[in-house]
């Protein structure tokens, strides 16, 4: 009997999300660089070895501007790993790759002036279809569920040592014993669970550990939301 085996060295692809700092340069570039230098003098090494993305949503910089800017930044030990909001024609070997799926804080979008749209149509905001992730089985210890495009619904329990991360809300029709991290970028997200035994709860970056939770909610059906900078909790039973 022969056993069928797969090739041992397969190439693995993963899609991952990372946090990066976005720099928004303004023309004239020379002045902006001078300001940056002054700033770096006060906080030397602030950008060193951090992932930096250039925010070009204002569409004020030309391709050659960006080309020389990335070199100037490199001299200051700032390495640009991608361009955001750039004209599609910037997609060229030699320039950092174009990034599209960045989550921007909502208030920053208001800064974009309408009149600088020099002929090039800005891509219409993509209307997101309802996109929730439904899990039929319990989430086991050590498992990591990430769904940044919408809600996560778990039919079953989330074990101690498991982690669920959602761009939207998290709904758990079972006991939540692990970590639930909702609303990556959305303060309106909520967490619902049938029975609260959680190790950690977070909404839009504000978190609460088991120690911070009121003991009266332990073991109960609970709803969690954000009120300003406070994580709020109420029993549903």
């Amino acid at each position, binding site marked *: *009997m022969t*056993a069928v*085996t797969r090739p*041992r060295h397969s190439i693995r692809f993963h899609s991952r999300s990372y946090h990066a700092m976005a720099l928004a340069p303004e023309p004239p570039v020379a002045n902006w660089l001078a300001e940056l230098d002054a700033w770096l003098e006060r906080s030397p090494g602030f950008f060193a070895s951090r992932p930096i993305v250039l925010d070009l949503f204002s569409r004020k910089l030309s391709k050659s501007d960006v080309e020389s800017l990335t070199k100037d930044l490199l001299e200051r030990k700032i390495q640009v790993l991608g361009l955001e909001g750039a004209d599609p024609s910037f997609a060229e070997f030699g320039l950092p790759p174009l990034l599209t799926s960045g989550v921007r804080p909502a208030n920053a979008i208001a800064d974009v002036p309408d009149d600088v749209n020099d002929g090039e149509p800005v891509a219409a905001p993509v209307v997101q279809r309802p996109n929730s992730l439904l899990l039929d*089985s*319990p989430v*086991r*210890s*050590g*498992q990591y569920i990430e769904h940044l495009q919408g809600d996560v619904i778990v039919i*079953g*329990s989330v*074990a*101690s*040592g498991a982690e669920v991360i959602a761009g939207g809300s998290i709904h758990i029709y079972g*006991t939540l*014993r692990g970590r639930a991290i909702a609303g990556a970028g959305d303060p309106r997200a909520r967490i619902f669970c049938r029975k609260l035994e959680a190790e950690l709860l977070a909404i839009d970056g504000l978190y609460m550990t088991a120690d911070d939770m009121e003991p009266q909610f332990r073991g109960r059906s609970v709803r969690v939301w954000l009120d300003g900078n406070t994580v709020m909790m109420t029993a549903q039973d």
Partner: protein
Amino acid sequence: MAKVLVVTSGKGGVGKTTSTAALGVALAKGGKNVVLVDFDVGLRNLDLVMGAERRVVYDLINVVQGDAKLAQALIRDKRIQTLSLLPASQTRDKDALTDEGVARVIAELKEKFDWIICDSPAGIERGATLAMRHADVAIVVTNPEVSSVRDSDRIIGLLDSKTEKAERGEHMDKHLLLTRYDAARAERGEMLKVEDVLEILSIPLLGIIPESEEVLRASNVGAPVTLSDTPSAPARAYLDAARRLNGEALEMTVPSDRKGLFGKLFGRRAA
């Protein structure tokens, strides 16, 4: 149809090897052809628990690497004709196990035996993942305490993702074997109750093995508890679990050794 059964737990010291031996003996006593495979390369114990440590010549690694034939490495039990053991190597480590080699050995064993019981090492690394890789059924051995339960939960996640069966999109049968259970202590809240463990792990219960001195004694003399003609409480629990594995529906009980008056009066013998 041969079935490959993995006995696993994540956490060490919960009773994987003891349970492998006891269930193997129980299944073989029922007339099945059973082989026990020790995957704990480098820390082999199953040969001791089976009382076969003085008969090991070749081991799993020799067979995996093609240095010995399977028939040379298999040790037949002297007490039960239908029971065999494939020992692990004590001098090598888990890196000596290859994917292809293990697949070949399991395929060969499937032609000879009804039950292939793989005793997994503790942990979630190579040895443990290879032991579960080809399994059709899994027994998750758990003690009624929180760390063991969480590790078991982790292992269940791996059983549902890293095994061949899971990768083919099929359902892996998983059974919970709760060992070292003490009903009185659970009632006092000193250990988790059966319901608590079942609620967390949500897999079907195969058996509850009561805490007993008999188990340690059996391991030390190399005679699994189920071998005895007058079965003790843990032996009865293992025998029931083996019958459930064969598809019988039995009522779940926690066997106990009730001591009579004389047992209480003469409980221990003076040294």
